[in-house]
């Protein structure tokens, strides 16, 4: 139970993917102009991250390590993620066209999202700072990926709310666009720094 809470707290707050690890900044800056699109992107990333870890973790742990080909992890992981995204796109298109219309444009972008490859690499690496003495297994890995995705969505939604307000503010010409978005993001990071004191 302690491990369970530790993973959730770490994934959502203390090791948040955007504010602490700075993974997945491209969609964070690119798709956070409207709250509705931010939620769509966040949900899509969360789903892909969870499924990607559920596939790559057993492939790495039970196939590549015993065969001694763990040095090929990057190539194998990026291939799994790319085909997974393509497959999800086709399934969603067939099963629920309305969801596809809402989410479809974000799906291809996810292949080149650092957060997805980042979480796959993280869970096969050293996780002892987060889960303590408990040994890593597939359940913890998938749980971590799911809540890391939710943490990503949380920051995306906060950012999109702030950016919608920013539209009403007059900023100087050279600060318009990315610079002011990054300064806003910096304040979100400062707010999230408080959580690093949770032990």
């Amino acid at each position, binding site marked *: 139970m302690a491990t369970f809470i530790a993973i959730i707290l770490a994934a959502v707050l203390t090791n948040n993917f955007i504010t602490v690890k700075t993974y997945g900044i491209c969609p964070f800056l690119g798709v956070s102009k409207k709250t509705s699109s931010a939620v769509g992107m966040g949900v899509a990333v969360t789903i892909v991250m969870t499924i990607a870890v559920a596939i790559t973790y057993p492939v790495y742990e039970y196939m590549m390590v015993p065969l001694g080909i763990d040095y090929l992890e990057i*190539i194998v992981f990026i291939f799994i993620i790319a085909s997974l995204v393509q497959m999800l796109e086709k399934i969603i298109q067939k099963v629920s066209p309305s969801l596809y219309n809402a989410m479809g444009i974000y799906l291809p972008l996810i292949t080149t999202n650092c957060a997805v490859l*980042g979480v796959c690499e993280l869970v096969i690496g050293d996780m002892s700072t987060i889960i303590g003495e408990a040994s890593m297994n597939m359940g913890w890995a998938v749980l971590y990926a799911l809540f890391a995705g939710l943490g990503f969505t949380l920051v995306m939604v906060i950012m999109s709310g702030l950016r919608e307000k920013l539209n009403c503010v007059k900023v100087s010409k*050279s600060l318009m666009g990315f610079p002011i978005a990054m300064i806003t993001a910096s304040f979100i990071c400062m707010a999230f720094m408080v959580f690093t004191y949770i032990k």
Partner: protein
Amino acid sequence: MKNKYAKITLDGLIFNNPTFMLVLGTCPTLGLISSASSAAGMGLTVVVILTLSNILISAMRKIIPNAVRIPAYIVIIATLVTLARMVLEKLVPDLYDSLGGFLALIVVNCIILGRAEAFANKHNVLESAVDGLANGFGFTCALTVMGIVCEFLGNGSVFGLKIMNFTVGMFATPAGSFIIYGLSIALFTYIMDVFMRSRRVKENRLARENLLDKNPEGGAKELAAKEV
């Protein structure tokens, strides 16, 4: 001929600088600029990988079928990153440790796939190599400059050398990296704006003098008509 390579170089370094003008490859930038040496190390790794991937993709652009080009590019880049990771782990373990997870994430760095898609699959090998070097060094310079500023403010040191005892803790965290990156983009676009405006003024003056030299009376009339 020479002019073409100069243009590619200047485009990559300044006019289409991947970090400041196009805002690509933001994850490693924000993650690593809190230390100047890891920022420079990341930049140089990207230079090597980008140049090699541009050369390989450009050499194979006629063989790779158009429909599967993106997966093909990703495999080429992932292979190069795997090689780079092995080499760095063996030769520069310090840099390998400081880059951490961002080394594997070079695979999904938008700059590399972006240059492959926008440049290398349309140009010959030599041009692609020059483009890779120019963009890579544009990225490296941007990262190093921001790394120096961030490390100086956050740790009071530059490239690990202690300079002052006064530090602002915020600049050692992503919050400081975001602010430095945002302000750097603002400063860069402001300087480019001023530069472009002065160049346009100069061009206009030259065009006017040319017109007057060639055809004093007709030119003067034309100019007067334009200005009204």
